[in-house]
């Protein structure tokens, strides 16, 4: 009786937990614009004021929102636009154009996209739109016609703004800013970028700079919390510090060290040989022959547990390391070059190797010793 009760209790418990998990997961995964803003209230207020002035007073403005990845630039602008659209008088009084530097890779595509989003295309019918030059003059003409008081303000949002600055002659940016600085259709140009050097670009120099820097990446925090959340089970209903620590370890795990854990003893030996070569020749590149020689020395003089493999076998292990990209050829491999003498570099740091060795399961002691004492056996 009591056991059944506890069982049903358990089920309810599990349901609750999974629900909680689901909600939290949703919060972490989907960036909903209605969440509260932390740390950027001042900037937010500033931005919304600016947008309102464009929408209501028809004043042209340009803003560049700069911040590292994951610092909430997009969220900020989405938030601001959402609030702006909630104001009734404004919402029907504004046109939005969203562009992304990763999608609109050149001005030609960007112009078409602008025309499409402004739905100017109905003017053209469904005819395939003219050449780039025609497009440009068409759009400029369109924007030029307006003036501050009579035409509807347009908000341009340029995500990955820095990529637009790479377009030839920066035609699009020049024209957008030119419009914003002359008595034409009121526009607000909002650029989102994670690069800080834009202010040195020639025609973009006039852009007002606002820095919205949040020190840490929010997205990685979400990932961390997600990992911790998955550890919550019925038997372990509450998050503890240990969970977070473990999640953090998962996040900050060194991927290469993990690979080293899975290598064979022979491959580990080769890596150690390479490490020694690096120490001796001060980061100079090496080839297979050198590594093989080093390995031979070790096997002949010190090794008790390591079998003296034949050269083709060692070669195979060497190639496996190359496939795992733990070593990297300096030049491109050509078919006729001798593989034994191709120059290579190790892509592992000494500390990495040592850490990996410490955790390596069942590592022979002579190998471990060999790793630590690079020159002593000579």
């Amino acid at each position, binding site marked *: 009786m009591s056991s059944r009760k506890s069982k049903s209790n358990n089920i309810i418990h599990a349901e609750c937990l999974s629900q909680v998990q689901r909600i939290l997961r949703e919060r972490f995964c989907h960036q909903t614009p209605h969440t509260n803003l932390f740390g950027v209230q001042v900037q937010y207020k500033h931005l919304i004021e600016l947008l309102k002035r464009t929408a209501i007073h028809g004043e042209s403005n340009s803003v560049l929102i700069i911040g590292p990845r994951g610092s909430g630039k997009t969220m900020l602008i989405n938030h601001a636009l959402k609030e702006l659209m909630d104001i009734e008088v404004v919402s029907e*009084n504004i046109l939005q154009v969203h562009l992304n530097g990763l999608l609109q890779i050149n001005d030609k595509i960007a112009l078409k996209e602008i025309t499409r989003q402004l739905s100017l295309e109905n003017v053209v019918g469904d005819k395939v739109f003219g050449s780039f030059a025609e497009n440009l003059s068409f759009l400029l003409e369109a924007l030029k016609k307006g003036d501050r008081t009579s035409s509807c303000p347009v908000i341009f949002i340029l995500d990955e703004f820095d990529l637009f600055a790479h377009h030839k002659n920066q035609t699009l940016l020049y024209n957008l800013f030119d419009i914003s600085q002359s008595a034409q259709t009121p526009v607000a140009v909002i650029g989102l970028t994670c690069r800080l050097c834009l*202010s040195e670009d020639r025609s973009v120099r006039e852009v007002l700079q606002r820095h919205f820097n949040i020190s840490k990446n929010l997205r990685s925090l979400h990932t961390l919390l997600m990992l911790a959340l998955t550890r919550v089970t019925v038997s372990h209903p509450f998050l503890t510090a240990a969970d977070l620590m473990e999640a953090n370890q998962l996040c900050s795990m060194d991927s290469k060290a993990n690979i080293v854990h899975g290598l064979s003893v022979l491959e580990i030996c080769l890596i150690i040989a390479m490490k020694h070569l690096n120490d001796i020749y001060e980061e100079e590149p090496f080839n297979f022959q050198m590594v093989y020689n080093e390995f031979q020395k070790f096997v002949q003089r010190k090794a008790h547990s390591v079998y003296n493999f034949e050269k083709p076998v060692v070669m195979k292990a060497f190639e496996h390391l190359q496939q795992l990209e733990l070593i990297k050829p300096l030049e491109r491999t050509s078919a006729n070059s001798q593989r034994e003498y191709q120059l290579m570099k190790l892509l592992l740091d000494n500390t990495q190797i040592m850490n990996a060795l410490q955790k390596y399961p069942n590592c022979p002691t002579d190998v471990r010793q060999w790793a630590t004492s690079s020159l002593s056996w000579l």
Partner: protein
Amino acid sequence: MAPYHTRQKIRQTYSWIGRPLLDRKLHHRTYTEICVKIEGCSTPVHIQVGQFVLIEGDDDENPYVAKLIELFEDDFELHSKKRARVQWFVRFSEVPAHKQRLLGRKPDAQEIFWYDYPACDSNISAETIIGPVQVVALAPDEVIPVDLKNEKIFFVKLSWNEKKFRPLSPELFAELEKLQESSPKCQKSVEAMTKNIESPAWTTTEQVVKRIESSHSASKSRQTPTHPVVPTARKRLELGSLTFPHLSCLLGLGFPRTPHTKISQPTSQASLDSSGRTKRKVNFSETTSQTKRSHLYRSEMSSPALKTPEKTGKVQPFCAKDVKKASPKCCMILRTRVPALKTTQINEERTLTPVKGGQRPSVPSVVLKPENIKKREAKEPETQNQATATSHRIRRRSSLLTLNRIRQQLRVLENNKSDQEEEEFLPTAEVSDSSSEEEEASTPALSRRNTRCISRNLRPFLKPSIQTPSKTPKKMAKSRTPRCATPQIRSRNLTTPEPASMLEEARLRLHVSAVPESLPCREQEFQDIYSFVESKLFDRTGGCMYISGVPGTGKTATVHEVIRCLQQAAQANDVPPFQYIEVNGMKLTEPHQVYVQILQKLTGQKATANHAAKLLAKRFCASASPQETTVLLVDELDLLWTHKQDVMYNLFDWPTHKEAQLVVLTIANTMDLPERIMMNRVSSRLGLTRMSFQPYTHSQLQQILGSRLKHLKAFEDDAIQLVARKVAALSGDARRCLDICRRATEICEFSHQKPDSPGLVTVAHLMEAIDEMFSSSYITAIKNSSVLEQGFLRAILAEFHRSGLEEATLQQIYSQHVALCMMEGLPYPTMSETMAVCSRLGSCRLLLVEPSRNDLLLRVRLNVSQDDVLYALKEE
């Protein structure tokens, strides 16, 4: 004042009253009274000499006001024998815009001015009189009586002589006083009227016949009447009709139109609707091929003088008649039954200066109406071409002469016909007549009269485009023919609120887009450019000028102002008329597109870059006939650089041709652009006329801010001085200066949330704005970066210090990082984490990194100076 625009709907007949008095000198018969009978209205209106009358003008809402001085019949005037001599009054709106402020006060709505300008043409056709009006003379200090405020009463206080406003002379005042007492009586007198039979009837027998024949192409029928008259003309026109039906149709448009063409319009329109898209395509090819053909045609012609496009150009103003339904602007031009001489002037103006004030008022009024084109496309697809051809604007006197003769002959034939079409046809005939007349008898008197007419006639073209700039484009939005359509962002529903506070007002004025009335601190440059262009205009030569200066020093604004002033002067006839074109290198996708833009703005023609270059070269280098000067502004010249430099070469080469009459003003940022990027042959053609705009000094910036904020106490004086000095020390960029001030008003508004505070922008606010604007984003970024990132930056510095190089591999930096962490007793990060940190900093461009596939070997550089990093890291 709606009731005046009656000409289309209500027919008026004019007849003399009383017996004529013979004027011995001029062989005129003078009369004292005229009777105007309005169709559908039983009581005719009688107008006596000495009365004030309304004269039909270009603007139906506001007809001209004049005093009738003399009425006479002149047999030498071919189309309108009833003449009248008047003393003009001008409305305030007719005073040239730049002189309006001479009045010094706001004029009353009903106020007019005695036009004291003897050079003005006062001989008009009596048939342009609309009706009597009452004018009351007032002393200059008298207030306009409120009870008399009725639309038909005007008040005159001052006289205007094109230079200044003066009070009325006492005798004039007395005379006017006297008149106004006698006038009301005259209006009421009712007398019998005589039948008017004189008005010429333009529907010819031939045309009636042709109508019956009902040829499919209206053009053919219209052009046939010329056959029996002048053999040479016939030959030419036949040619046209055979090989170039569209062209001949164009020619035909100059002739009276039959109602037949009108009827056929709707049907053709319907057919167009169904096949709109294909039509467009066809049309396009037609237009281009036609130009080609016309060239061909030209070369075939035995006499080089008879150039087809030119002729079509001549006829163009009347083509506008066909398209009047769509455009109010056109209507206005057409509906007016202006006195003959005035029409001439319109025509003259159109031929000489179709582009005034850069607004291109007359030509685009045809080109830009997509509806018009659409309507007519099916039947006469060459409408486009007409407009194109118009802009050639080369006067062919000889051909016109022939045409006029033909027309005169026709008129003899058609004498007694009913006058059904009279209204429509009148302008056609008038034009030909007067232009021929002008050719034959170009007396000084004739040329003198221009002044008035230009100022009168030109303005209506300009006015609509200035007052309602959005009118035309709005219509475009509905159109389906985008080729000529000028689209527009849809207009806003919400009206912009007036600036509520002082700060808002200041912000509005400080916005870069707010164009100031005059540019302070650029007087010398303004004067130089002005006199350069002006001298070229007077000499009818061409030339180049190179203007350089760093951004935000007012180069483009100054040139714009020069052009604005010159356009006003051209309106006032102080300088020869000119055509203004502007291109911007940044607004072109490709340097060669500049040809396309110039050609399109010059002629409305569309062509590919190569073709446009050829056409322009032909126009500027080959044409031998006199034309008006073209002023071309090329902004951002450096963008027009090509490997061959052919674009620049052409731009600078054209002005050197004698016939071109092209003035090229070029603007770029660098002072030594000609030496740096141009080949010798290009830079030598550019000539030595250089001008460089120096960056503004702090006192100049202060002056600029002061002029923008005139009578507006929003800034502390110290604050203005501060920002002016700061900006002048850095760049002297006026734009930057204005932006900072604008930002400061925002900050000020933000800090004064309480509504009662006065909100004066102080030094503190400006400092904040300046800090925001000039502070280094890098340092902020480093300060705000995470501990790990800061540690990584430290490791980079340490590694650079160790190796003495400015570059290091990730592996080296990692080992440094680990060492640093161990020293401080911190847990050191794994390689993967370090990689992530590195790429994050790289994406911010704090570091310059290689692509990360190089893994440990990727090389890292700092994108900021080491000192900056140290400073930023130390600060905590």
